[in-house]
């Protein structure tokens, strides 16, 4: 069965060792999602900081 799965590398990656990699994929999606959300807030805060500085001057 494994030889067949290796024909398709994506299938092989996720099925190969009893689907453990699906968990890795799910964990990476969540970490990436939270990172993107934090990065966007960071950008908005930088923008606000710039506005507050230009207000003062």
């Amino acid at each position: 069965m494994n030889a067949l799965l290796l024909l398709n590398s994506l299938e092989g990656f996720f099925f190969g060792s009893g689907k453990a990699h699906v968990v890795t994929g799910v964990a990476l999606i969540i970490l990436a999602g939270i990172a993107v959300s934090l990065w966007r807030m960071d950008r908005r805060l930088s923008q606000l900081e710039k506005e507050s500085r230009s207000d003062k001057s």
Partner: protein
Amino acid sequence: MKGSWNWFWKGGSVLLLTYVVVRGFCTPLQPGLVSATPSQLSVAPQVVDLVAVGQPFATSEDLPASFDVVLRSGDQLIRTDVVAITPHSVRIQIDVPPTMPSRALDAYLFTPASGTLFLGNACFVEDAAKGDVPPEFSASAPDPQEPDLGFSFPYQPNIMESIRNLLWHVPMWFAMFFIMGLGFVASLAQLRTDSIGWDMRAEAAVKTGLVFGLLGLATGSLWARWTWGAWWVSDPQLNGALVTVLLYSGYLVLRSAMGDDDRVGRLAAVYNVFAFVMLVILLMVLPRYTESLHPGKDGNPGFNSYDLDNSLRAVFYPAVIGWGALCYWMYTLRLRMNRCAHHLLSR
């Protein structure tokens, strides 16, 4: 006082999530049978290999004699001889009987340390006639054992290792319910008081909740691909989740479309109350009245046993609390950011 409370829950959520990640990845999976080769049998003596995944059900010192494999056809049992054993497989010799009630055979592997392993429809006998299993081929079931599997996650056919996703995918939705509920309360308060403070709370809650909803959809889709075989299946639970996320996206569209209009707070609050009611109907009420592939509902036995599994529970509950606290943390950050922005713009 407030400072130390903040330290407590924020640090607590980090500690809980660290525990969940470590436990979630390091806990072994209970053994389960996945395949029998060859699976097509004919009426003759033959050798079959049964292969298992998960933690080993035997050590290399174990003797084949202490293991027992029985095949079941309909309600009758067929005897086999265990000839060799490895930590993840067992080789059996079967004398396939000429008559049996059903041509599809289920396999039961009785082990001293890991209890009984089961594989449904393990083999199919092409040329067997219908009838009772002759007495010289039949077996009786060994005594059931009470194995001590230690701290381990239950084996589920097809789901296998991906049961660990329970600690990632499911808490996303719990966190979303929690923060959207908070937004709902804020919107109700906004409608009563018409204050900008409550409006900002509702907006921060919806934005944070949407992050978790989108993550829930994405992780669920990936998991579905490798358990059900498709990225998306038209299923009441899945479609309900998608519609809920789209409804909440509508909230953001409404806000940006209204711009600086004074009525934006009240309108958005009305929309948010409506969206939360729809969330409860679509995700909590409707799926219970329909057939669903997705577990957690009546009519699907897929995950029922995890409800009772103490090992999984000991990691799942901390995961729900940890992700919920992290979600609340992200909500407070966004709220503080929105307050700063409002303060700056109204100067």
